[in-house]
């Protein structure tokens, strides 16, 4: 997606319409072939109901010419989601909430004589902290007897990764990065523990589903012999999907940072001081949009929210992202989005022509980045040269709040304990020299009762 004009790269599959940009504005062209379904969406009251429940993106009619006049019916202007995130960047509960939102939408649609024609996790985005369907063209008229066309997609995009995260390992959601149309069910069936066959929903929706797909992919079958499903049967299917999704529990697993704040080198008082310094820096630059990289459970993201309109908190640890998301829900924080991002291997651009889903960098830059207690991980754990760390941040932001953690710090010593110290330029002088070409130091404050120093830098 670019900021100027043109069609949006990820919006080409459905012939009902597509997204495009004109003069930076996001618009959706609806084609004539979707006219009846769109009119039904509005007149059945489904749009109003879903929109009122916060489940479907708001849009208004746009009185502008279509992007491709041939076959065009209408152009609408949807509310723009400020930060697009993808299912492989969500923690367990984010994916679970997106799944439950999809099922809720489908149940409400059925009550009003419509049905979801797709159930892609990419159609769900987090807006003001809650999952919302962004594809207004996902509905079609429901006909009695018709099965749910998107059932298989729902199982691949939601159920399979959720079961894998809950029953096998909470890191398995990242498999969605390799399988853009959801985790193949035969793979999910192989990876899930054998004993999951004793659970009826998993047996039916994954194991037997996978087996049936395999069996009939090898057999020629007359489409007329596919059996229909009564409305009651369909509601029971949705009830089963909802019940099994709702019951799924997040599995902690011994991940690295969930208890990080209990093991830091700060006393409670020094920690408060650090918060104050960060707060001051952010106020000084008037931070509006902040990425808190390596943000753990989001303590400093919340400090940033006092100044900024929106904060994305990225961390490599699924437990931290999970804890952060739950706290957002508890406190009703709408402008903080916790995401699972591995800075050593950040989300690439993927999909058709590697353009369908944006890399994390294509979703920036932002005005301000927070990089607290991070630099030693980038340099010592990942052997990245100082100058490349600086150029990485220069590509992301204008203002950088960065903490320098000296070699004498026990956290750095821990990283160095099992390896040779090849990091001669990992000194305060080396740090300043590495950053001086791209950044200008605006402020420098030592964190009281620690050896760490906080810097406010501005890109040259």
């Amino acid at each position, binding site marked *: 997606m670019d900021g100027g004009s043109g069609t949006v790269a990820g919006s080409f599959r459905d012939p009902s319409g597509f997204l495009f940009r004109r003069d930076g504005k996001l618009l959706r062209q609806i084609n004539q072939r979707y006219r*009846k379904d769109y009119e039904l969406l509005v007149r*059945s009251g489904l749009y109003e109901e879903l929109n009122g429940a916060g489940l479907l993106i708001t849009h208004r009619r746009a009185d502008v010419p279509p992007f491709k006049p041939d076959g065009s019916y209408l152009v609408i202007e949807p509310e723009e989601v400020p930060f697009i995130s993808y299912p492989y960047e969500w923690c367990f509960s984010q994916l679970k909430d997106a799944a439950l939102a999809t099922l809720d939408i489908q149940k409400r649609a059925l009550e*009003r004589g419509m049905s979801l024609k797709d159930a892609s996790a990419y159609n769900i985005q987090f807006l003001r902290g809650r999952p919302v369907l962004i594809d207004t063209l996902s509905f079609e008229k429901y006909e009695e007897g018709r099965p749910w066309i998107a059932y298989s997609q729902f199982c691949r995009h939601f159920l399979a990764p959720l079961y894998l995260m809950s029953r096998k390992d909470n890191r398995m959601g990242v498999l969605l990065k390799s399988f853009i149309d959801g985790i193949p069910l035969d793979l999910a069936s192989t990876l899930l523990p054998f004993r999951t066959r004793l659970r009826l929903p998993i047996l*039916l929706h994954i194991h037997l589903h996978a087996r049936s797909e395999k*069996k009939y992919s090898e057999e020629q079958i007359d489409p007329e012999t*596919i059996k229909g*499903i009564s409305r009651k049967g369909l509601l*029971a299917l949705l009830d089963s999907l909802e019940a099994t999704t709702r019951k799924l529990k997040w599995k902690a697993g011994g991940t690295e940072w969930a208890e990080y704040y209990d093991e830091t080198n700060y006393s409670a008082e020094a920690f408060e001081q650090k918060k104050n310094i960060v707060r001051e820096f952010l106020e000084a630059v008037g931070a509006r949009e902040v990425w808190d990289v390596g943000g753990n459970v989001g303590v400093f993201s919340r400090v940033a929210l006092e100044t900024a309109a929106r904060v994305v908190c990225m961390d490599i640890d699924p437990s931290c992202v999970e804890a952060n998301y739950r706290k957002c829900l508890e406190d009703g924080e709408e402008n903080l989005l916790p995401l699972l991002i591995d800075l050593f291997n950040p989300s690439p651009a993927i999909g058709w022509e590697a353009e369908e889903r944006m890399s994390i960098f294509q979703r920036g830059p932002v005005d301000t980045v927070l990089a607290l207690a991070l630099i030693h991980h980038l340099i010592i754990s990942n052997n990245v040269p100082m100058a490349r760390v600086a150029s990485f941040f220069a590509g992301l932001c204008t203002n950088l709040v960065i903490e320098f953690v000296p070699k004498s710090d026990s956290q750095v010593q821990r990283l160095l304990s099992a390896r040779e110290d090849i990091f001669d330029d990992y000194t305060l002088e080396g740090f300043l020299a590495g950053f001086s070409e791209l950044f200008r130091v605006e402020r420098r404050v030592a964190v009281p009762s620690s050896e760490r120093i906080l810097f406010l830098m501005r890109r040259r």
Partner: protein
Amino acid sequence: MKRQDDIDNELLKAFAFARLLPVRVNGYIGAGTGSLIIQAVIALTVGGLFALKIYWRRIKAFFTRKEADVEDLEQRKAEALSAVHAEADETSGEEAGTESIEAALLPEAAAVASEFDPAEPGAVEGEEGI
């Protein structure tokens, strides 16, 4: 691996007893023949369980209902009724609201809204029978 596949195959056979009317399926995403077939089987299986669950709840409710519950039910009924009456009083206002939403979203909605007859074929709820 082989043994797991055999077990899954046998289980699949055990569940394959669905016999309903054939239906033609079209969609812009490939739904997958195998997926549609198992969907019908699952719908029938969980449909049966769903019905049993509901009947069981009703039976349980019949035997466990107490005086207090009945009073509570009466109270809720009365509340629901008064809510319906209150809503009826506001109906005209609500209709106007719906029209304005349609006008904001549909091209000829302003004109259509005034002529709109729910019983007309193709127009919402009348035809759907919901």
